[in-house]
């Protein structure tokens, strides 16, 4: 490229050689950065060392270490806690898609404006308000013990099914609100354009609004799912021996809390990749939006 440039033609695209001034500036910046990093690093380590030494020096530390961080207890309980953990995973995998469907249905119902739909819309509002208001654990109790007590023909009795049902009802309400926020965030001009082409409201929703709305709310949805992963432990109150309950059994047997730590580690192992994935998705969506705004 350089060869073809004639005199007075376009200036070079890239700076061919940096000036003395710029080189000096860059060197200074590098030194400054290195200095800041060193200070930050050293002070962080010092603070951490202070905290840890304070912890270890406290009179109760040996007791706490034995009670919460016992290696032997951890290794003893981990296999069974892990076995129980598969229950949590399966509850989560079953509940999640159902929650998405329920949430979307409620959100779409709320956005329909025809007067004929008023009863359904009102029901959707009541559902969202009630099930966002009831603590999830209460719901698990009420459904897990209440439904079988009604003794209805054909009603499910399995605590797993009832637990999943309770989680679906609770999280469905939250996810419905997330979807609704997404739908309402789509500029009305999109709806106007869709309708001006002759698309019915339903068609506009299905082909234009929802695809955009859903893409937009993926980060908060992933957030709700991380929360769901943890709330699967609530099903333990119905007798299901999942990770938390296994930890509790071991804990009660040995009067030691380390099994709970084992269960916590497993939950973290599940949610951390989810969190990074969420960040990645959010960054991607943000990048596309920024590019569009150019």
């Amino acid at each position: 490229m350089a060869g073809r440039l004639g005199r007075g033609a376009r200036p070079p695209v890239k700076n061919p050689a940096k000036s003395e001034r710029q080189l000096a500036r860059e060197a200074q910046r590098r030194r400054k950065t290195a200095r800041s990093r060193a200070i930050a690093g050293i002070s962080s380590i010092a603070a951490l060392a202070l905290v840890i030494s304070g912890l270890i020096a406290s009179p109760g530390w040996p007791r706490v270490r034995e009670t919460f961080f016992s290696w032997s207890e951890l290794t003893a309980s981990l296999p069974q806690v892990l076995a129980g953990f598969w229950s949590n995973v399966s509850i989560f995998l079953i509940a999640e898609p159902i929650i998405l469907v329920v949430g979307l249905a409620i959100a779409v119902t709320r956005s329909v404006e025809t007067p004929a739909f008023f009863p359904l819309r009102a029901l959707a509002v009541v559902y969202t308000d009630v099930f966002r208001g009831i603590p999830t654990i209460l719901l698990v109790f009420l459904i897990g013990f209440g439904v079988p007590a009604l003794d209805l023909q054909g009603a499910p009795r399995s605590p797993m099914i009832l637990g999943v049902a309770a989680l679906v009802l609770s999280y469905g309400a939250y996810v419905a609100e997330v979807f609704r926020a997404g739908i309402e965030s789509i500029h009305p001009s999109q709806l106007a354009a869709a309708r001006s082409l002759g698309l019915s409201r339903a068609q506009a929703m299905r082909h234009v609004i929802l695809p955009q709305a859903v893409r937009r709310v993926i980060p908060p949805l992933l957030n709700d799912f991380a929360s769901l992963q943890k709330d699967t432990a609530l099903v333990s109150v119905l007798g299901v021996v999942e990770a938390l309950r296994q930890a509790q059994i071991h804990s009660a047997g040995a009067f030691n809390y380390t099994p709970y730590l084992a269960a916590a580690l497993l939950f973290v192992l599940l949610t951390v990749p989810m969190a990074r994935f969420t960040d990645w998705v959010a960054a991607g969506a943000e990048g596309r939006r920024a590019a569009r705004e150019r």
Partner: protein
Amino acid sequence: MPLLRVESLWKTYRGRSVLRGIDLDVDPHEVVCLIGASGSGKSTLLRCIDLLDQIDDGAVFLDGVEITAVGVDEDEVRKKIGMVFQSYNLFPHMTVLENITLAPVKVHKTRKSEAIVQARELLDRFGLADKAGEYPDHLSGGQQQRAAIVRALACRPEVMLLDEVTSALDPELVAEVQEIVRELKQQGMTMILATHEMSFARDIADTVCFLHDGVLLERGSPEQIFTSPTEPRTREFLAGSVLR
């Protein structure tokens, strides 16, 4: 018989009358340009004709049938009217081709393969053939607006409503859009344009309507309006706007 008739149209928005008793006839193949200050009601009038907003009084007739009557299937009506907006409003999650084929396939029940062929023809005709597989955010403003016009055309409307379609564009991109509009006129499309571009309006319009504060103050041929407007307000408005 006029293709489109607007009779005593009133529209209030938040207590303010945005349109006051508008009367307008549009004959087949006629190009009507609406001019007037921002807020004069041009966009609202077009939206009301396309049944995107509900009117407060009066009526709109298409092909002699009242489309503002209760019980009219609005989706059916909108199949016959094409509208293009100032901010293009292309669907960002679809390619240009998908944008254009969506309505023909879903609304007019055209077979997908057929719709694609027709879409490509239109794109080719308006110089966008190579952009068919692109997403809207990879197109320039002018290209997006042209695509939006093609999208509306793909539905073979009887009348096209263009709402300030060049106002959001950089000056150098305005021309390419105006080109398309001229071509549409040549093909005999009935159109109502709301525009700020006075020279373009003068060039293309069969009839010019001046709106002021929701009232259709003056109406006539381009020569009449631009050279010798009768209403003082019209003169004020034209004097204030630079004839580009």
